[in-house]
């Protein structure tokens, strides 16, 4: 059998002793300290992922799903849609903008305050994140325009 020679070049003495050790005594399981440390780290990672998923997950809904949503007054939700032509109204002084997004045959009025993305205009796809009370327009906290990225071909808006 060909001896496994990793490390032999680097540290001859150690490898020889290790080979002796393997032939004379049975394989020792991983030391308890390693096991405990490993479990602690893995546990921490899993806890962090789990807890933060619970805390930060946001529903991603279609407009029709949103209309039947009962928890969306208190829980942030993301909705995607296309900005309807002629629906954009800007209030320069309060930096407020209202518009309607269309998703299939459903429409949803949205109000948003803040800086509007460069490429925002009727006809583009946007994602809004915020709260919805059914009686008033969707209160968006973030407005994301789908930005055509590096590999997009040249006429993104018409797609």
């Amino acid at each position, binding site marked *: 059998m060909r001896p496994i020679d990793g490390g032999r070049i680097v540290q001859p003495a150690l490898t020889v002793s290790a080979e002796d050790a*393997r032939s004379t005594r049975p394989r020792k399981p991983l030391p308890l300290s390693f096991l405990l440390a490993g479990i602690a780290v893995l546990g921490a990672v899993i806890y962090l992922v789990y807890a933060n998923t619970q805390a930060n997950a946001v529903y991603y809904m279609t407009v029709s799903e949103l209309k039947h949503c009962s928890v969306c007054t208190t829980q942030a939700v993301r909705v995607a849609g296309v900005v309807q032509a002629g629906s954009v109204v800007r209030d320069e002084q309060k*930096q407020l903008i209202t518009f309607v997004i269309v998703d299939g045959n459903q429409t949803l009025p949205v109000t948003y305050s803040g800086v*509007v993305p*460069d490429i925002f205009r009727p006809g583009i796809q946007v994602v809004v994140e915020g709260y919805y009370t059914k009686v008033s327009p969707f209160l968006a906290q973030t407005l994301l325009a*789908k930005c*055509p990225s590096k590999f997009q071909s040249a006429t993104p808006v018409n797609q």
Partner: protein
Amino acid sequence: MYFSDLGTVSLILALGFALYTMIVAVIGAMRNQPQLVASAQRSVLAVTFFLILASAALIISFLTHDFGVSYVAQHSNLAMPWYFTAAAFYGGQEGSLLYWALTLSLFSAIFVFTAKRAPVVLIPYVVATLMGIETFFLIMLTTVSNPFVRILAPSDGNGLNPLLMDPGMLVHPPMLLMGYMSFSVPFAFAVAAMVTGNLSSDWLRSIRRWTLAAWSIQTTGLVLGAWWAYHVLGWGGYWGWDPVENAALLPWLTATAFLHSTMVQERRGMLKVWNRALVILSFALSIFGTFEVRSGVISSVHSFAYSDVGSYFLVFLAIVIVFSTGLFLFRLPKLHAEQEFDSVISREGVFLLNNLLLVGMAFATLWGTIFPLISAVIRRQTMTVGPPFYDQVIGPLLAVLILAMGVGPLLAWRRTSSAALWRNLGVPTIIAAVCAAVLPLAGVTDILANIGFSLCAFTAAASLYELWRGMCVRHSHGEPYLLALYMLFNRYRQRYGGYVVHLGLVLLTVGVIGSHFFQIQQDALLKPGQDMNVAGFRLTYLGNLDTKEPDKEIITSQLQIWHDGQLQSYIYPGRTFYHNFDDQPASQISITTFGVTDLYVFLADWTGASQATIRVFINPLVPLVWYGGLLMLLGGILCWWPVRTKRAAVRVSQTSDVSRSQKSAGIESKGIVV
């Protein structure tokens, strides 16, 4: 006959040679016929030649504005400067796949030229694996994603997306794509090692340098991407945890883990299974990233041109995973650790911790990225997680990682006596404590930021202190300090290159903490003569300018920056409208750096000549992110740089390894029980 026809023919020939290489290399290896293997190696060079030819054909088609080529017409126009026209080569899907294939063939050619350094039995399988990957790309390039498809030529092309008309375009995409691609070589080594059953550590020495190269390229690509986003997108940040960014980070994290755990295998013959898994995982994640970006299964703010290519990548990813997992399980019984773990408080203990943290980060990032899919399956409701999720998960893990980075190099292999540990940790601990005490006085009251800064201080101090002690030891043998420093880097390039990388990451982390906790944002609607005051800076708005050029129109606002009662400079944040991309203006962001603080000014909106909405971000410490990135790249290159090139490489690297480990026992590890 057009250049594009030459391109198509070259691609088909390259595909033929790639298939030939794969088959002949494997047959040559199985029948033990060296002449077949040699033929396969030459055939790799043929593949490289034809891909260079195809790429040249595409670039010439661009530069000669041959709009009869659909891809050229879609991604360039007559008005673009020649360098963007040439860079449009990788500006779209077909071209970026050709670029992938080209760089892979170049790396394969480099491998062939340096093959005598690699273990002989591995060569045919490495070549076969590389050409297997190349075959996949060439099949796509010749069928569904051919950049040379001809159309009836329009009089002018569409031009490049305005966001891409930026110097970043010239450097970031080629780096990142090359980074993705370069994980192929370590993967090919791992496959070759498992196929041949040559499971010794020989291949690790070859693979480590290839991974170091991949790591350095990917680091550069990531930092350049962050820099580009910062200068172009106008939201004041450089990293948004977008699925597309995450996809690039994932293989980087696993490759970083591998670069550390491979040292444990080299020194102590342990973690063999783990190392192979990391190499395979890095490559699979780089393919996953490409798939995710192309397929549209995950909704991203970046929307790419979705096409069938995504499903091809999914099939390829499945093949890669099934094939390598199968090989892996087949060889698992032969992968014994040669030694056993002794103590957690040891170098290998910290390496294990580092690996768990990095893989944990990769897992968390992957989880967040594909969470919409997971939740759709489990809860029957699509949900997403945003940047807060990543900040809160990655933040604590990064903090522990930074701490481990400081402690690890101070520990000896196998076990460290607590006396030696405290002797090494004393100075850095005191410095960190001083930092923690002084920061609140300097105005840093945020407890998390303070912990972060202090951990960074600890690790920076530990790394620099190590360097200093190394210099002192050499100095006591009669070398002047500067020569001692040079000799340290010259002799123990990997070790000290590693410290440089660590210092770079610490610097980068300081920048991240600064911009995460202390960013100030302020908006103002201004008329000429009006001021806005932000964090000691006064901005006076003067009016809007409108510049008309043949292919574009630029609107800029003119502002003065006043600081300490002095006029510092005039700035012109604005917006560029390219005529053929009217609906997609590109922001001109004004970034002025004062020491380590960026004043980031964005023209949010304007009306006529005399009204503008200005958004200002004060971004403390962000320049450190770029300096840190540079330092990491420098460290990566230092680690990668060949030790000596004069004599036969394998012998040299072995003997120098021996002398290095003996010397390190003698001089370097003063006071540490090895």
